[in-house]
C-alpha cells in the first residue's frame, strides 16, 4: 500500500473532483429535443407541454429529490408563476415574455420564501399536509378573486407579444413556443446541475440523508432548506409562467392538486434525486398515458396506477434507479 501519494490523488477524491464533468450521453436529451422539433412539426404543442412538465419536475427534484422536502403542493408555485404572467398581460400592465417570466419567478420565489419560513419548521406528514393546504389556499384565492384572475374560467387569450420582438407565438403552429421553452429549460437545467454538484448541493443531500447529523456538524439546516425551497419555487414559477405564455391562457388547473400529484408521480417514475429523472419520468408518463388512453379510453388511469404500485414495490428509485442497479449487476457479473 502506498502512503506517500497525495491524498487528493486517491481514486475516491478524483471521482468526487470529476463528478460534475459533462458526460457524452448528457447531450442525448437535447439532441432528441431538437430532432423532435424537425421530425414532428405537427406535434409541437405536445412537445412544448412535455418540456414545461420536465422543467416543473426538475424544480420539484431540487426540493424533494435533493433536499428531501416532502411536498404535495408544488403546483402552488407553478400557478403563482402562471397567474403572474396571466394577470400582468390581461390587465395590460406588462407583456414582454422574458421579463414577465423573471417577474413570475420573483413572485413564486417570494411565496416560496414566505411559506417556507413557516412550513419548513415541520417535517414528514405535517409538512406534506401544510404544503397541500398552502396550495389549497392559493387555489381558492384564485377562484374567489374573479375580478383579477377570472375565477373558475381563468384568463383566456392573453396578448403575448413576439419573443424579442421578432418571433410570433402562433397557437396553431407553436414553433416559437417549443424553442423558447427548450432554451429556458436548458438554462434552468444548467443552473440546477451546477447547484447540485456544488458544496451547497452536497449539504442538501446531507440534510436529506440525516437532518439530525447536519445539525451536529453545525449546518444552519433550516436556512439551507428555505433557500433551496425558494429556488425551487422560483423555477416552478418559471415553468408556470412559460406555460401561460405558450398557451396564452391561465386557469385553475395550474394550481390544482392534480398538477401537483402528476409531477410527483413523474419524478417518482423517473427517479428522484437524479438530474435526469425529471426527463425520463416526464417522457415515460406522457408516452404511457397517451398509449393507455388509446388502448383503454375509459380506464387508462388504472394502468398508470398499477404501474405506480409496481414502481413503489420493486423500483423505489424509479426507472433510472432500475437502470443503475442493472448496470451494477452486469458489472459484477463481468468482474466475477
Amino acid at each position: 500500500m502506498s502512503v506517500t501519494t497525495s491524498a487528493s490523488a486517491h481514486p475516491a477524491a478524483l471521482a468526487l473532483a470529476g463528478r460534475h464533468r459533462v458526460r457524452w450521453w448528457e447531450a442525448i436529451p437535447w439532441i432528441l429535443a431538437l430532432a423532435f422539433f424537425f421530425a414532428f412539426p405537427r406535434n409541437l404543442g405536445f412537445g412544448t407541454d412535455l418540456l414545461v412538465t420536465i422543467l416543473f419536475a426538475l424544480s420539484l427534484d431540487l426540493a424533494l429529490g435533493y433536499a428531501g422536502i416532502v411536498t404535495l403542493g408544488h403546483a402552488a408555485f407553478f400557478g403563482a408563476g402562471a397567474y403572474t404572467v396571466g394577470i400582468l398581460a390581461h390587465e395590460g400592465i406588462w407583456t414582454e415574455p422574458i421579463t414577465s417570466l423573471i417577474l413570475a419567478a420573483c413572485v413564486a420565489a417570494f411565496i416560496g420564501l414566505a411559506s417556507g419560513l413557516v412550513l419548513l419548521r415541520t417535517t414528514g406528514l405535517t409538512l406534506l399536509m401544510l404544503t397541500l393546504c398552502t396550495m389549497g389556499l392559493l387555489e381558492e384565492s384564485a377562484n374567489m378573486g374573479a375580478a383579477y384572475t377570472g375565477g373558475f374560467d381563468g384568463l383566456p387569450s392573453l396578448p403575448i407579444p413576439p419573443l424579442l420582438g421578432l418571433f410570433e407565438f402562433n397557437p396553431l403552429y407553436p414553433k416559437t413556443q417549443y424553442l423558447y421553452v427548450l432554451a429556458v429549460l436548458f438554462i434552468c437545467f444548467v443552473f440546477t446541475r451546477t447547484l447540485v454538484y456544488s458544496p451547497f448541493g452536497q449539504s442538501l443531500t446531507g440534510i436529506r440523508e440525516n437532518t439530525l447529523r447536519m445539525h451536529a456538524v453545525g449546518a444552519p439546516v433550516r436556512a439551507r432548506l428555505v433557500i433551496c425551497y425558494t429556488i425551487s419555487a422560483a423555477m416552478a414559477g418559471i415553468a408556470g409562467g412559460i406555460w401561460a405564455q405558450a398557451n396564452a391562457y391561465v386557469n385553475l388547473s395550474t394550481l390544482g392538486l392534480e398538477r401537483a400529484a402528476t409531477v410527483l408521480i413523474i419524478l417518482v417514475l423517473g427517479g428522484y434525486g437524479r438530474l435526469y429523472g425529471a426527463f425520463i419520468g416526464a417522457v415515460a408518463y406522457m408516452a404511457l398515458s397517451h398509449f393507455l388512453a388509446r388502448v383503454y379510453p375509459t380506464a387508462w388511469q388504472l394502468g398508470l396506477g398499477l404501474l405506480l404500485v409496481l414502481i413503489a414495490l420493486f423500483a423505489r428509485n424509479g426507472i433510472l434507479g432500475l437502470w443503475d442497479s442493472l448496470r451494477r449487476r452486469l458489472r459484477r457479473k463481468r468482474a466475477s
Partner: protein
Amino acid sequence: MTEPLLETRALSRNFGALAAARDINFRLEPGARHALIGPNGAGKTTFINLLTGVLQPTEGQVFLKGHDITGVAQAQRVKLGVARTFQINRLFRGLSVLENVYIAVAERLGAAPSMVVPAGQRGDVVEEAMQLLEMLKLADDAGHRISELPYGRQRLVELAIALGLKPEVLLLDEPAAGVPSAESHIILDAVAALPKHIGVLIIDHDMDLVFRFAERITVMVSGAIFAEGTPREIGANPEVRAVYLGQAGHG
C-alpha cells in the same frame, strides 16, 4: 487552577417528574481524557445532549472556556468547537464515506454555502477529508457507500465526521457500541490516537476501554454525579463497585 475547557454549574433537566440530570457540577480540563460511566438510564446521554445544546437545561449553566453557552444553539456550539459522536450511527447512509466527511469539513471551512464551484474542486476540503480518512485507516473505503460498510467501519466514519469539525471538546457517546470485539481495537486505537490538545469525554460501558483510556472518571447514577476521581480511586471505591462495577461483573 487553570480555566476548565467545559464546565457545568448546577445543571438540571427534568422530563416531567423524572429528573434526568440533577445538579451536575462538572469540569472538563483542556486536553483531558475523561470518562463518564454509569448504569443504563443514569442520564449519561441526556448530559451529552445538554452539553451539545440538543436539550435546554431546566436549571443551571454550561460554560465553554469561561463563556456562558447555555442559550447557544447546537449548530453554533459546533462552530465554537464542541463536537460529538452518536451512540447509534447517524451517518449520511446513501453517500460515500468521503462525502460524509466532506460535508463536515465543508461546514467548518465555510465552503458549504457556495453554490457555483463544484464540490470536488474545493481541493482544501477534499484534501483534509482524505487525510482524516487515512489517519483512521478508512482511505480504502473512501469511495464506498456507508451502507456497504461493516458496522465497525461505520463507527469509524462516525468518529471521522466529528474530527472533521476540528473540535476542542469531543464527546464520544459509546464509540465502540455494537462493534464486534474482534474489531473494537480499531476504535480504541483511533480514540487513543486523538490529538492531545482535544478535551475528550467518553461514555462507555466497556470497562476495559474506560480504564485504558481515561485519566479521570465520573460516575453517574440516577441523573446525579455519584463519584469522581482517577481510575485507581474509582476502581477502589467500594460504593462504586457496589452500584456499578459489581453489576458489570468486574471483580
